[in-house]
């Protein structure tokens, strides 16, 4: 499998994921899984436990776990997310299964664009009665064809002919999977997968969910673990290339409230255009060194201080990029400042829309996920602070360690359940 990635073109590594599409939308009750016919024959219990193979329900317990390897894939607009369950070694393991195991687990980077997020690996996890480690791998969606060619060349399909997949790419590239790699995709609804993934991961480890204490304090900002035991109702804000906002009232009771096209792709895209950078990490790095207040027009720039009439503190951004209407000011700012301003604008906007949705839905708990937040403490702090400040302490921003991988985890869970 390592060789799978060796042939990737040396394109820049793309990051902000397009797990879930945003763009638009209003209340729409999400239809249940778009399952294939054979999947629909499997009865589903309304309240399933998080681990599908340890269910107390006798109907499920009798289900044999599927044959290895166990993968879940989520093909977003920007990134492909892959989770791989590495079972404890067995003597009888087939040769090509061993190959996959060693390839994936002995490397942290594949080719020039594939990455295994080692720090996210979950060790000693029990899934369907098997102990093992869960690995998290990502690569850019534009390298998918290369991935498929590799899969074909390595005869991966000799092991499995179906693959549980979610994300837009599960639809867009369905034919490519079939014709290039000989793989039949089981297309899964991505919102369903994300929620399943979130619920599974947050119950599988104590440190999955956290919040920020003192988010606005440079030294005294701490990550505090949060027990997401009885999570409903909560707002799930999935920030990939775009943003989707879901109101989750129960495991099978959720709907997409709205979304926005101003997401990770917007931050990344604007930074590419404004600074000439190419990767998401580069853009983030630049942003961390910049000062957005030189780019943005603040309330104090207009009113000389707070706008008391409306209770607006002077530090509030009145106009994102508002100072850039003047040539003199444009000449004064650095690329880092621009990157920071783009980050602040996108993040704060997501915060505002989320807050309004939370109020309209009457929900106080908000969970932010998605690859936009990967390594992005700046945005997490901004979201944490703005949620708390503008709701006068009523709303809390929660985050999850496995940011962008929940769709892929959800599709892996489907595989185990449907076998």
């Amino acid at each position, binding site marked *: 499998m390592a060789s799978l990635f060796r042939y990737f073109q040396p394109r820049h590594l793309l990051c*902000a994921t*397009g797990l879930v*599409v945003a*763009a*638009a*939308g209003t209340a729409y009750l999400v*239809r249940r899984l*778009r399952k294939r016919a054979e999947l629909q024959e499997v009865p589903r219990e309304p309240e399933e436990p998080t681990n599908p193979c340890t269910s107390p329900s006798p109907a499920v317990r009798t289900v044999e776990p599927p044959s290895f390897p166990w993968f879940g894939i989520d093909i977003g*607009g*920007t990134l492909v997310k892959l989770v791989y369950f590495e079972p404890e070694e067995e003597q009888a393991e087939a040769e090509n299964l061993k190959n996959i195991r060693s390839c994936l687990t002995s490397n942290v980077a594949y080719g020039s664009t594939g990455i295994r997020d080692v720090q996210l690996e979950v060790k000693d996890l029990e899934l369907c009665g098997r102990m093992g480690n869960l690995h998290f791998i990502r690569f*850019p*969606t534009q390298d998918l064809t290369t991935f498929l060619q590799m899969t074909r060349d390595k005869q991966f399909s000799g092991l499995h002919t179906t693959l549980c997949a979610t*994300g*837009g790419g599960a*639809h*867009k590239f369905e034919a490519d999977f079939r014709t290039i790699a000989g793989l039949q995709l089981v297309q899964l*609804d991505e919102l369903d997968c994300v929620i399943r993934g979130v619920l599974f991961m947050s119950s599988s480890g104590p440190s999955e969910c956290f919040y920020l204490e003192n988010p606005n304090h440079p030294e005294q900002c701490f990550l505090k673990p949060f027990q997401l035991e009885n999570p409903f109702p909560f707002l799930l804000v999935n920030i*990939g*290339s*775009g943003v989707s906002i879901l109101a989750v009232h129960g495991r099978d009771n959720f709907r997409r409230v*709205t979304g*926005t*096209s*101003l*997401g*990770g*792709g*917007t931050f*990344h*895209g*604007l930074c*590419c*255009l*404004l600074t000439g950078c*190419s990767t*998401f990490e580069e853009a983030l790095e630049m942003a961390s060194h910049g000062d957005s207040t030189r*780019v*943005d*027009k603040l309330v104090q720039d*207009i009113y*000389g201080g707070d706008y008391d*009439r*409306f209770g607006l503190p002077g530090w*509030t*951004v*009145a*106009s*994102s*990029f*508002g100072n*850039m*209407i003047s*040539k003199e000011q444009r000449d004064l700012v650095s690329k880092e400042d*621009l990157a920071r301003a783009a980050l602040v*604008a996108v993040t*704060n*906007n997501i915060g505002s*829309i989320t807050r*309004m949705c939370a109020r*309209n839905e009457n929900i106080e708990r908000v969970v932010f996920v998605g690859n936009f937040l990967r390594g992005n403490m700046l945005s997490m702090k901004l979201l944490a602070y703005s949620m708390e400040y503008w709701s006068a302490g009523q709303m809390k921003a929660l985050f999850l360690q496995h940011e962008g991988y929940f769709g892929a985890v959800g599709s892996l869970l489907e595989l185990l359940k449907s076998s």
Partner: protein
Amino acid sequence: MPRGGSLTKLAYYSTVQHKVAKVRSFDHTAKEVDGDPLYEISVQEEITARLHFIKFENAYIETCLDFIKDHLVNTETKVIKATGGGAYKFKELIEKKLRLKVDKEDEMSCLIKGCNFVLKNIPHEAFVYAKHADSEFRFQNTHPDIFPYLLINIGSGVSIVKVESEDKFERIGGSSIGGGTFWGLGALLTKTKRFDELLQLASRGQHTSVDMLVKDIYGGAYGSLGLTGDLIASSFGKSATTDKEFSKEDMAKSLLHMISNDIGQLACLYARLHSLTRVYFGGFFIRGHPVTMHTITYSINFFTKGEVQALFLRHEGYLGAIGAFLKGAEEDNPNQYSWGENYAGSSGLMSVSPDLNPMQRVRSGTFDMLEMDRLERQLVNLPLLQDPSSYIPDTVDLTEDALARQYWLYCFEEALDGVVNRAVASQPDLPQAVERAEKFRQKYLHKLQTLRHQPFAYGSLTVRSLLDTREHCLNEFNFPDPYSKIKQKENDLALRYFQKVVRSLEKLTWEQRQFALVKGLLAGNVFDWGAKAVSDVLESNPEFGFEEAKHQLQERPWLVDCYDQWIARLKGPPHKCALFFVDNSGIDIILGVFPFVRELLCRGTEVVLASNSGPALNDVTNSELQILTERIAAMDSVIQAAIKEDRLTLVQSGSSSPCLDLSRLDKALAVVVRERHTDLVVIEGMGRAIHTNYYAALSCESLKLAVIKNSWLAERLGGKIFSVVFKYEIPPQSPGLRR
């Protein structure tokens, strides 16, 4: 004076000296001599108050200040009110130049004050924008209650304000992604400096090359969520995943969509949270730009599925200035007056898209103007309107009816020579009448040209607005009453026949008399100098008389014929009080209306005669009618007794138009109507009963009658010229039904 980023808007109050026609009764104690005119006409100077709003680019600030300095007549003025970002920036310059203290007013309060003012005082202020519809602008009727509403002000940032009453408003939210973001980010991305150039770029661009769409991720639609493939999943998403150059146009377009959609979404979230359906958009991002009005409208429709309409304001750019002015004038209590837009002095709404408006380039750099005349009296709804909020005065909206628009614009242009000649002839002794009349011609012609290109320039284009614009232009060049002499002559002539007409009516049986009275009303109404066909006949044949007019009338059954129902009604109990909106001078009022009114009075019905406050065409004005009534009373005991006993009352309508807007009537009229328990409304003439109010629903019985003196209109209604409309209506559950 609000001072925005690049435009200065100035509001000032002036007193305008202009000529008005006055009529004065002679002393009639002396025995009347044949040939003496009935009353005296004089043209006097009158001073009225006018509000002026002008806007110009900040580059002209010094010129502007010089202008203010020259026009500061009131030496009492010590303070000038200013609002907006520039109020701070230009404070010193203003104080030095004008020797006035600059008083900074809160921007948002000014904005809201101005917004309330225009919503209340300017009909057709608000409109819906529909880019691909036949008429781009669809104007909203003035709603009697303007509150509550949401105002989304898109300046450099976005402010979302909930307005609950005149004094109560709250900024419920906002966003930093606004006009400044479009401009600033746009300048960085495209190296284009000017805001309108950026909009131009955007209007030519394709956002799909820059944005990541749903179909770019899914290969098609995301059906289960109802997301179509063309929806934007991630703004600028493609610029993150593609190594290529993007065109300036495409980036500007993507930016425009991103910002408009974002604002639209926030607006909807706030509207939903506060259960508000009226959402007005303003600020420099919107200001008359079809591109942004379109994207915002699209976004609002998308996010609310059509439940909320995005509304825009014709005078949005002036709101701050109006508000600042009103704050300064608070001691004058401007809200106690009614105001009317002066079509002659206002430059009107312009489309800034060069494709749409070829005149735009010529106009840039010129001053935009709005003038509002202060009406000395308050205007209110007719209390008898069935539903004031759905009342629309005008029968045909010419902005939506292209055929009718072409016809009427042509018709008014055709009639212009006659109006000019009439204006000149009306002032044989006054200086420069010919020159002034020529200037009037040019101005009105220019307005007609503008309206041909921009039918929506002054709100919905209607026959009424065309007529009113003509009156305003005539006044502008000091032709306050071109028909004064003709009216005088006709009144004089008609008065001589009054008694003869009454005597001959008295000889008839009751049934015969009722028919003769209605025919007289209709025949009298043929004498209307507003209609070209009639003025042709009258100018060529002055002997065209009352009797001849009766012959010209269509035989029954009329085009609209409710005569039998009317007669049946007359056989029942008399009406308590009739309100009669009268039309023309001369034969119409004296030989048509008065005998009819006399009959009503004899039945025991009180009568309120409502006539125009100011002159319009040959319509009888309130002051003329007072003299005429006196004269008639002197020769008719029925009329005399009715006046003495207060059973016949004259009121002014508050209007100076040949048409009638029942939602803007003199407050005193409304009081009389209510006090007398008016149960019958009679509306007479093409202007008041056909061009306007044909479909007006009243809560009491009504009679709308007119002779169609325009063959095009007659054909449209399915008749011929001189067809008769006699429309008698009884509202559901009217006391009239319970006989």
